[in-house]
């Protein structure tokens, strides 16, 4: 690990070193493997695989929809919860903490059942809406903790300096603390995004026609379990890899960590 290979990402584009393996890294291998397998199977074994992928196609869209909307909502809820958790106002602090404790203590699958079937009699929500609500509320609590950790990780001197320059508490938080905290928060939030995407497979329990449910429908009728679930796994892998690439690109732009 020579000193010369340390590249500060914030200072400009990364220069590949001699020991850099170029395209030969885990992400490229995985995505090339997944996509080429899918294409190979569709082109050379169209009998089951092309039928499967056609059947799965609208499920992919639903999975995407649930993921994207849930990510946005969970981020907003997470930010509010995180701010609540560091708030000096006792009531707000208590409220945010209780929310996190309760939601974190209930499995997502149970929450899904609860919102759709248990509360369903009172507030008849659409299946997709119930799925998005459950995912956002659950991941909002997790992200709240990430935001709180990121905010408290910022040196106290930063807020003291801002306050002595005449910023009020709101300005200090939004103009000084959060922009810095965001860089620390991003990697763990990226992990949460990917975990959320994978957990959307749980919403199939609400009879939402997502990727997994479409796969189950197909296999339960044709008995092609091996072929169907191979395809379902590969499609999930491709989506997850694309999302993880997006997250790491964002990280590379924003992170203040030195990349080795």
């Amino acid at each position, binding site marked *: 690990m020579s000193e010369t290979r340390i590249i500060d990402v914030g200072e400009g584009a990364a220069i590949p070193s001699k020991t850099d393996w*170029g*395209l030969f890294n885990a992400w490229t291998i995985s995505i090339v*493997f997944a996509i080429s*397998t899918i294409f190979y199977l569709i082109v050379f074994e169209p009998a089951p695989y092309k039928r499967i992928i056609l059947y799965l196609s609208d499920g992919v869209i639903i999975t995407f929809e649930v993921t994207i909307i849930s990510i946005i909502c969970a981020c907003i809820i997470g930010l509010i919860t995180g701010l609540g958790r560091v708030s000096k106002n006792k009531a707000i602090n208590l409220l945010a903490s209780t929310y996190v404790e309760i939601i974190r203590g209930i499995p997502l699958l149970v929450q899904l059942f609860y919102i759709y*079937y248990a509360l369903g*009699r009172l507030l*008849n929500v659409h299946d997709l809406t119930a799925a998005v609500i459950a995912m956002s509320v659950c991941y909002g609590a997790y992200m709240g903790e990430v935001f709180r950790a990121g905010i408290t990780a910022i040196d106290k001197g930063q807020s003291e300096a801002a306050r002595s320059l005449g910023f009020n508490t709101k300005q200090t938080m939004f103009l000084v603390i959060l922009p810095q905290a965001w860089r620390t928060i991003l990697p763990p939030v990226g992990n949460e995004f990917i975990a959320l995407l994978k957990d959307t497979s749980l919403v199939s329990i609400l009879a939402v026609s997502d990727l997994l449910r479409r796969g189950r429908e197909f296999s*339960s*009728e044709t008995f092609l379990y091996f072929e169907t679930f191979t395809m379902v796994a590969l499609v999930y892998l491709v989506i997850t890899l694309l999302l993880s690439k997006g997250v790491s690109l964002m990280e590379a732009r924003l992170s203040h960590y030195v990349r080795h």
Partner: protein
Amino acid sequence: MKRLFKSLFLVSACAILALGVVGCGEKKEEKKAEAPAAAPAPAGPKTIVFASDATYPPMQYMNEQKEIVGFEVDVIKAAAEKGGFKAEFKNVAWDGIFGGLENGKYDAISSSVSITDERKLKMDFSEPIMAIEQMLVVGTKEKATDLAGLKGKSIGAQIGTTSYFVVKDVKGFKAVKTYDEVGLAMEDLVKGSIQAVVADSPVAVEYTTKKYADKIKIAGVLKSDKVENIGIAVKKGNKEVLDLVNKGLAAIKADGTFDKIKEQHKMK
């Protein structure tokens, strides 16, 4: 540029290798399916393990003592007595129940399995236990009596059942939703998320007369030109189990035990 090509080559070589692995996996799967046809020699009365999705009242369901009970369970227990085997029940989720049979996790499926030509290709069936029909269940205020009257509405059925197969290709619905359990479909109907459920006749009668008697009703029977029978499914070629089950079923049908059980459960 050269380095780029080199690494691209390496990556694609890896991918091809991986494909080989997937291909091999498939072949192995086929071999496995053929191999364990021979069952171990029976000592005393043979124990047959029946897989049953115990979410299907009144055919098979869990009572509060956590036992699998129901009409079909009683039939199999009576058949076991007459056929000279021991029946053991195992609660298995419907979705995937056929995969478990193929992998040898249990000997037979007793879960109101309708005998269809597609299923016959994959497994063997006992003699029919009884005939059932597909019924359309709707809310009490709904006026439609057939599928045509429900155009533009959402309809539900249990995943992988003949109830789902009869509606899945019918055009004009807003959505055809599949549920893991028929009870969840009924619950969604009561809630109003869907407007109709298709279910096997015994189940439809059970739900509309007991659980949700004041909320849902049977709108009608979905007519079919073929008689739908339910039977016991065994792994293809497992003649030993099939013969025992058939012997027991024939015996209880001959001596009137079957009709008695039917009466006890108030089945038509």
